[in-house]
């Protein structure tokens, strides 16, 4: 059971990040956070970027934690899915850097 949890942990980390950031995006657009100007950009983008950085840190820590055992095929699979969680979190939210938020 625990090995199944470890195999799923990385992608679950990404899924949590996805729900959080996509949810924040929807709420922010509904409440007009993108129209609040703050130093460094609009409030919407700053909130989302902060959430992204936090998720990146969390999934990175998770990936490092899951990379300890490389001796067995399942151990290596856990390592791979752990890093998948981090890489997916990195790639999925790249649009944050460039795309307009609520248009």
């Amino acid at each position, binding site marked *: *059971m*625990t*090995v*199944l949890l470890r*195999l*799923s942990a990385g*992608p*679950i980390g*990404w*899924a949590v990040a*996805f729900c959080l*950031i*996509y949810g924040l*995006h*929807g*709420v922010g*657009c*509904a409440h007009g956070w993108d129209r609040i100007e703050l130093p460094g950009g609009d409030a919407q983008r700053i909130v989302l970027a902060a959430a992204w950085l936090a998720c990146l840190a969390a999934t990175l820590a998770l990936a490092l934690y899951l990379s300890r055992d490389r001796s*067995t*095929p*399942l*151990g*290596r*699979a*856990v390592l*791979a*899915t752990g890093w*998948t969680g981090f890489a*997916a979190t990195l*790639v*999925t*939210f*790249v*649009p*944050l850097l460039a*795309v*307009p*938020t*609520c*248009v």
Partner: protein
Amino acid sequence: MKALQLHHELTAIWRTEPGWRGHLRSVNHSDIGKRFIVAAFVFFAIGGVLAMLIRAQLATPRSAFVGPEVYNQLFTMHGSIMMFLFAIPMFEGLTMYLLPKMLGARDLAFPRLSALGWWCYLFGGTIIVLAMLAGVAPNAGWFLYPPLSGRTYTPGINSDVWLLGVTFVEISAMCAAIEIAVSILKLRAPGMRLDRMPIFAWYMLATAGMMIFGFPPLILGSILLEVERAFGWPFFDPALGGSPLLWQHLFWLFGHPEVYIIFLPAAGAVSTILPVMARARLLGYGAIIAAIMALAFLSFGLWVHHMFTTGIPHMALGFFSAASALVAVPTAVQIFAWLGTLWSGRPQMKLPMLYLIGFFIVFVLGGLTGVMLAMVPFDAQAHDTAFVTAHLHYVLVGGFVFPMLAAAYYWLPHVTGRQRVMRIGEAAFWLIFIGFNLTFFMMHLTGLLGMPRRIDTYPEGMGWTALNLLSSIGGFLQAFGFALFLIDVVLQIGLGRVHRRNPWGATTLEWAMATPAPAYNFASLATVTDREPLSTQPDLGVRLARGEGLLAVARNGWRETMVIDMTTGAPEHVAILPGNSWLPITTAAMLGGFFLSMLAGLYAVAPLFLPMVAWLGWRWAWTNGYHEDVGPLDAGHGYRLPPSFEAERTTGWWGSVLALGASATLFTALLFGYAFLWTIAPNWPPPRLIAPSLAVPALASAGAALSVVTARQGRIAAALGGQAAIVVALVLLLWWAPAPTGHAYAATSAAIAAYGIFHAGTAMLILAFVAARARAGFHSPARSGEVRIARLWSDHGAAAGAFCAILLVVPGWLA
């Protein structure tokens, strides 16, 4: 001689009764699996005929073959049948037939549940097809978007046929998902640790998990849309605070994972067949497991790529676009693992291999157009054109039909025990392969030339004429190919020569038995020490038949198989599986009565069927268990293991956990809908909120606390009272709430309350059952598994009920 005697004794216990009784009562996984496969092929043929009618209509411009109304039914039914009545049931059937054999077990974990699934599938599918013959088939597209599918634009029962029929069929998918997951986790050969499981089991474990989390949003959406159509609760009506986009979210939240739910079992077949054809070990077992897990999760984050043109903010589109492109990576990992396996071996060009090559070519092309469509600007251009139709057929036919044809040729000798007669299969392959590419490659081009999907006719002079004619010719070539395939299969069943065991030289356990398989699969159960049992122990089948393995006994008329520890594969207890029964078919018939009376608009009659279902469920559970302690059983090789009714964690417990997981997913989807409408939909806030009463949440929470505490102390009556308090609280809340027909807020709130009431009510039923069982002597300190299962349901009912009661009054408090 012992082998023959054991065979006779086990057959007497496991056999399917002769004649009609056998057809109606069998719960054997081989029977049920074969039925699923045959029925799915019949539906495939029906869907194929519809496709031919579509291609006949589009072969020439300004065709007068069928009118627009019939054409709408044709493409809606083609899509719906291929998805819900062919693809899903086909892999379910293949899995039900194969899985226990591959895992070294005698049956699946819940044999009657597979039978129930079969009957629900058969009845639901029949309703849908009969509706088509009556001319009232669904006609709003296979995704049934409101408002087109709503009362206003589809006043007849066409949409109801889809909503009710498909939901009926989805019951079988949920049964199968739970069945498959628990069987893989718990019913394996001793010693088969997780990292020794056949790769097919990994694929199916991921698929089953995806079904448990992927289907509930669709089931929820179908319930909501049917309730909107039947009773006017405005979930999807923007004038009253609903949103048609909510349907699209719920539908595609199911619909995209669905693509992978279909692809993964097929990929599992590829990963099983390919190494055998290549005479090599599968390369990258661990990497493939990682890819499967990545796919299983990532594919849930892509659903909005079906909604790129609905006006969602660009940044959100960017997230989904990136995730959609990303999902190609784990798919590519598998492709490279397969190519590497071929490279490292000495491939034989046998017939299954030919179909695998067809799979490679077609599926990779489909994947590439998939990455194109994942890019928002390209999708905006190609959206709703024949290009998308072409892409999805490359993915689904490439990713599912070709592997299934390979699987058919690979495992047919196992099912029939016979060899192929003539080389018709090769001719069938070339007809299908050429016909397919002719049909759908051209559709990429017609799509890029601007031809929309779902149009029933087009004028000359658009430049689409020749391409469409070629597509239609290709379509008919394909149809001939599939007809040849069918002839080939029938010939093999009827005329094939009996072959030796394991004709392919495979290494997985399903070949360690006589073919066709005996009803009990293995006369005794294997102990496994590595991933390819038949390569290290080539005589395993014979030794098992001689009774040299575990559980080589026929005692008490019990259907016994081994339950193991999930991770280590150590024997844990002996499952005593139920025998043939009327319960599955009668339960499905009662459910059918419910769905049919809903369809007929007899809304007062429909609920009468539900107590019948509950009563049958009670009978169902009553036949489990045992009325006295028997103590550990001799399992052979020195093992003494408790029977399942004296085990701590039964398969039933795991099945309940998964069922509740599915239910919780449905509830989460409902909460998503509530939040989505609240933030996105027009005409909010609603005219009146639910009164911020304190009494309702207080009563529900007190009931929940009472139930949770007293269930642990074994005071069942008090726990029952706690659940009753929850029901009362939520009914009062509904009573005082604004009418659900007035606004989407009231409708979603009522749906949330209904969820709480349903689960607290179910908990009451289960607690009452446990009380009755205790009085009838079915419980003892050793036989307490049932009580543990009841507690799961009762705790869930308590938590859900209290949460609903609190959640629904919060908006009133805040206002």
